[in-house]
Structure formats: C-alpha cells, structure tokens
C-alpha cells in the first residue's frame, strides 16, 4: 500500500529487485559451474583452489566496490563502457562479490554427493554434461539453499553498490542505500519502514523457495 502511493519508493523497490534478482541469478550460474567443476574433478592444486574460494567468500564489499569503481571509472581499463553509477555496474559488483560465495557453498555441499556417486558415474562412462546434470539433480535441495543465501546477500548489500552506484535518486538508489541515507539524515521512521519492506521481500522469496523444495520432495516420494 505504502509502495503503491509513492513513485520514489516504487523506483527504489524496482531498482532493488532488478539488482538483487539479476545479480543473484548470474552469480548462481557462474558460481554453481565453478563449484561443480571443483567438486567433481580431482586435480593437482585442488586444495589450494578450495582455500582460495573459501577465502574469497569473505571478500569485503567495500573493497570489491573500490576495485570495480577503479576498473570502470573514466581512467580505468573499462571506463569506455561508461557504466559508472549505473544499475548494471552495481550488478557487476554484486556478481563479483557473490559468485565466490555461491562457488564455495556449492563445492562444499556437492562434494559429499559427488564422492558417493563417483564410482557409479565413472563406471557408466557418462558424458561430462550428463555427469554434471546428475550431480546437480542430486544436489537440487542444497542448490535452492545456496540461491536463497545468494539472494539474501544481494538484497542486503550496501557497501559495494553505494560506491559503484552512487546512491542516485530514481536511478541507482536501492532500499539498503536508502536506509543508510535516511539513517544519516535522521529519518529513522522511513529507514525502519524500508527495512520492513526489505524483510517482507526476503520472506516472499523464501516462501517461494520453500514451496519449490516441498514440490520437489513430493515429486521424489
């Protein structure tokens, strides 16, 4: 109701959802692929790769924001793309931030599954796409949880997107950057209201994911 009456708020919610869904889905695609490849294959230096992935899971958002800003600023190597202070660049920063988290969580959750499946899958001499499909099918519940985490991280992010997006009204302002701004200007009521809307969106996504998990479980039984 509150959102419906306020065009500015509508824009903030729209920007937030666009950024959170796009970045979490892209991070899921890249991260699951990386996590799956690392989980499935045994190669020299695998332990080092896993340690690097797990370290990158703790990437500080502000650092990511600064690095992405430098790369895409006027004098940076990607400056000619003119993406600075845009939702697209906020999505890039989010993908950089969330992909290692998705990859690390995917690797951790799929490794025990892969270990149980490996002798059978190897013995059947399956093609690589088929092997990967079977592993993903076995790990579908875990992957839903991984996506929820990625989405939660995307929708609650402030530091990186504030740096690369600039928190511009009706352009790059999201709910979290708006909350931070309203807190700084002393408008606590609006900050809290935005926080409640943010939680409601997260709840909605969780409910959909829960229904999806229940549906899959029912189909399996």
């Amino acid at each position, binding site marked *: 109701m509150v959102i419906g009456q306020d065009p500015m708020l509508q824009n903030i919610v729209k920007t937030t959802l666009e950024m959170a869904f796009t970045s979490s889905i892209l991070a899921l695609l890249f991260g699951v692929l990386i996590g799956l490849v690392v989980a499935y294959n045994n190669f020299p230096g695998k332990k080092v790769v896993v340690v690097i992935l797990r370290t990158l899971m703790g990437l500080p958002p502000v650092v990511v924001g600064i690095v992405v800003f430098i790369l895409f600023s006027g004098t940076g190597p990607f400056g000619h793309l003119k993406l600075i202070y845009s939702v697209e660049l906020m999505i890039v920063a989010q993908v950089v931030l969330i992909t290692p988290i998705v990859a690390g969580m995917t690797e951790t959750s799929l490794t025990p599954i892969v270990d149980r*499946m490996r002798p059978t899958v190897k013995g059947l001499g399956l093609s690589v796409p088929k092997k990967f499909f079977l592993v993903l099918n076995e790990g579908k519940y875990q992957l839903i949880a991984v996506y929820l985490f990625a989405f939660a991280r995307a929708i609650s992010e402030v530091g990186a997107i504030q740096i690369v997006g600039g928190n511009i009204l009706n352009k790059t302002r999201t709910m979290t950057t708006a909350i931070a701004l309203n807190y700084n200007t002393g408008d606590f009521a609006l900050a809290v209201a935005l926080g409640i809307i943010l939680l409601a969106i997260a709840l909605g996504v969780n409910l959909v994911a829960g229904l999806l998990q229940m549906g899959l479980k029912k189909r399996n039984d």
Partner: protein
Amino acid sequence: MIEITAQKKYGERVVLDVEKLRFVEGEVYAIIGTNGSGKSTLLEAIAGTLKVKGSVRGVEGKDVAYMPQKSYAFSMSVLSNVTAPCPLFRLPAERAKAKRLLKQMGLHHLARKNASRLSGGETQRVALARMLVAPHDYLILDEPSASMDVESTLISEEVLKDYLERTGCALIFATHSMAQARRLSDKVVFLDGGKVIEMGYTDEVLDNPKDDRTKAFLDNFAR
C-alpha cells in the same frame, strides 16, 4: 583381449600385484578370494576407475562398463535410472528397451518409483539393469548379486546370461558364491593378498584346485 599388469599399495600394504593377467573377449571370468584379497581393486584397475602402477592393455577403443559393489541410485525414477547411460537422441527407443529389461528383471512395477527410495537388493537390480541397457565390449561387475535374495539372484543371472549371449560381451565379476561362479563363468581367477594364486576353467579349478591356498579357501567355503 585385455592384459593387465598392475600393482597397488596403500602405505606398505600391497593390495594388488598381478602380471600379464589376460581376459579374452566373449568369455566370462569369476574373480574369487577372501575379503581384502584384491578383487575390487583388480576390477577397478581394469575399468580404469582406480589409478594403479602398471598398464592395462586392450581397453583402448573398447566400451568397458563397471558396476561398483555399492551402486548409486540416482534420485529419479527407476526407469530414468536405467536409461541414464543412453544418449538423449536415442532416449525414446531406449526407454522401450529399458521397460522390457525391467520386466525381465521383475522390476516393472517399480518403474515410476524414485530409485533412491528402494531397498538394497532392489537398488542392486536396478543398477544391473542400467548396465545391461546398452551394449558393451567388457562388463565388469563387483558382486552383482550382493544384497539380493536367492530368487532375484537367479532372475538377474538369467537376464545377464541372455545379454551376454546376445551381445558377445565379456564379463568379469567378483563373487563370494562358488555356485554363482559355476552357473555363470567359463574361468575363475583366485586372488590372495592381491596376487593370482590360481586361474583356469571353472569346473576344473573348483573340483580340482592345485594351489594349497585355493584348497584351503574352498574347504573353508564348504564348511
């Protein structure tokens, strides 16, 4: 013909040490031995699912399929499990074949059930059906009737024999059952401490073992 020369150690313990062990196409071999004698290691080495020191000759360009002792049932229908090794473009035809196979194995009533919910014996039968849906040059089965009751074992053996006759595929399988070795195999290979202690035609070796360790094993088995 497959010829394997392989050694595998875990720490100081030698689990496999075979030299120029040969398996001829179209023949059936039973690998027999006590627990820890190296049966599974030998099968995995032939299948190429375990790295060993040495060489396996004759597998290049051949279709070698391997079923481990504890087969994994994918979390999908029994029918989809059986067709899992089939190429997607041949799926409709392979599904009909898989259905026939399930019927032969007495599993057709489970076709739509989720395979991850099956009992151990049922899982093993589904895993065997999954191996038999496509033609292979060599079929390597590690205790194919483990967890199966007598009736299921006999039905599975009949389906397996029918498959071998139709395809001319060679079978190498590990077993603890001398009766199964007699029913299925042309030749037996006795392993002890990772080494071949005796090899020959099944009836000859089982009725007239030459090596003292084979005799002792068969005596223990008869008790």
